[in-house]
């Protein structure tokens, strides 16, 4: 995590999150960029379009009529051997959902920046993780950035790992909170990135002089094996990712190697541990400092990677906690937070199962305040098993007075 208290160094530049990500993408030298504008992502591809138009980036910027065609264009480009990039948010990601599952099945290493935003209805442009979690089961790797620097670096590392394991990447960063913030960040140069990221060397390409069929029909006799190969590639990607964060550290000096690059922790051995994704962790760290100053042993476990799921790492990081609180910007209507459910599942066959409470907060851009986090720390400290289903999860920011029945 970049330290907010530091002044920008010589190498750092202060720019808007979307521009910084676009500059990082430029350093990866994509052959093709195709996207359709959507708030709060638009700045990423708007900047890339500028860079192409100004001759700074030698890339095909392909304008399309929709996100469906943006993703489909990336599929075609990637199948032809190109390094392809796109970016989207929310409804745009939903419209890409069908071609993205196809990209995973065709094993195409398309990398996308996803500026996370809630899904309609009601329409909202603000951040939560509903969009990313709705694409969870497609076969795309998913990363979550805490700050702008990570949003840049995850895209670069995303290309490196994607092109080795042949899976697409969704690199998530919170809409507005990270897309529209002005923050100092190291913008990697093309020279540095070319040392880290060699040219793509695909096993198969679409080439009229050597025809192949990609994404063809599979009968029940074969489909299982094709899908199993995605599962195997996801497993393999854990090792590749662990090596990638090491290589990244050597070249760029930024250290994402904790827990094989899967988790980032802050007082990770504390009695009480919060789990959260993305930008809200900045506030959580500050509140943890305050509680620790009062003698409360509380820490943070932040999954950097959501797919492949950091099963072994989370067992190690959470297994000996007194209690765990999962703060989540997504929910699965009819059950509970998907992240909380996955963490419980991952601990089920582990040695210990700490009690886990989940908290649905920060939906559609609702601010998560220090006092909100303090209250969730205190509720986590009181957690004990067994729990009834309706005790497992709460919505601490719910304004019951707004409900038609007053919450009764």
């Amino acid at each position: 995590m970049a330290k907010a208290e530091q002044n920008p160094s010589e190498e750092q530049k202060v720019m808007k999150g979307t521009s910084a990500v676009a500059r990082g993408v430029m350093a990866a030298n994509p052959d093709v960029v195709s996207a359709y504008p959507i708030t709060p992502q638009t700045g990423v591809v708007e900047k890339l379009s500028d860079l192409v138009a100004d001759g700074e980036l030698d890339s095909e910027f392909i304008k399309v009529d929709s996100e469906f065609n943006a993703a489909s264009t990336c599929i075609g480009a990637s199948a032809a051997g190109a390094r392809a990039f796109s970016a989207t948010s929310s409804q745009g990601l939903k419209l890409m959902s069908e071609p993205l599952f196809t990209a995973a099945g065709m094993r195409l290493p398309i990398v996308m920046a996803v500026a996370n935003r809630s899904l309609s209805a009601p329409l909202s442009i603000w951040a939560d993780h509903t969009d990313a979690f709705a694409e969870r089961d497609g076969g795309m790797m998913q990363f979550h950035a805490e700050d702008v620097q990570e949003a840049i670096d995850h895209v670069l590392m995303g290309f490196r790992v994607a092109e080795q394991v042949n899976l697409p990447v969704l690199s998530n960063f919170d809409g507005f909170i990270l897309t529209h913030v002005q923050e100092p960040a190291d913008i990697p140069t093309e020279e540095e990135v070319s040392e880290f990221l060699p040219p793509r060397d695909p096993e198969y390409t679409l080439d009229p002089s050597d025809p192949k069929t990609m994404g063809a029909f599979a009968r029940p006799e074969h489909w299982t094996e094709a899908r199993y190969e995605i599962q195997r590639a996801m497993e393999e990607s854990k090792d590749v990712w662990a090596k990638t964060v090491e290589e990244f550290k050597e070249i760029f000096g930024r250290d994402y190697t904790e827990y094989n690059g899967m988790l980032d922790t802050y007082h990770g051995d504390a009695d009480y541990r919060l789990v959260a994704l993305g930008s809200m962790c900045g506030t959580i760290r500050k509140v943890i400092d305050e509680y620790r100053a009062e003698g409360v042993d509380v820490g943070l476990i932040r999954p950097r990677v959501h797919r492949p799921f950091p099963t072994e790492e989370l067992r190690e990081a959470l297994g000996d906690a007194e209690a765990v609180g999962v703060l989540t910007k997504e929910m699965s209507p009819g059950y509970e937070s998907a992240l909380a459910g996955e963490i419980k599942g991952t601990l089920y066959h582990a040695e210990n199962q700490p009690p886990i409470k989940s908290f649905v907060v920060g939906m559609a851009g609702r601010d998560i305040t220090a006092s909100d986090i303090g209250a969730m720390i205190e509720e986590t400290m009181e957690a004990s098993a067994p729990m009834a289903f309706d005790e497992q999860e709460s919505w601490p920011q719910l304004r019951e007075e707004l409900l038609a029945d007053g919450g009764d």
Partner: protein
Amino acid sequence: MSESEDPYENLTITTGAVVEPNTSRVNKTGSWRQFKPVINVDACIACGQCDTYCPDQAAKPVEGEDYYGFDLDYCKGCGICEEVCPTDAIDMIREEK
């Protein structure tokens, strides 16, 4: 088709399930057919409409002749050729086995 005759049964899955060209030729889809096209060679003017519209590329000019014929290994018997033939030279006849 019994399992032992399935030409794809043991197809190896490559990364992304990429398939080499022309692999579908081993699948003789003519076995699906219920009606087969029969051409009246005197009425055929060799315009090639049947070839243009055939979804299975089963209508082809007969070598050395001035009329068209059908590759019954792949013709599924859809009857599009009968519909598009401008001289009504094609009749679809029920297959008898």
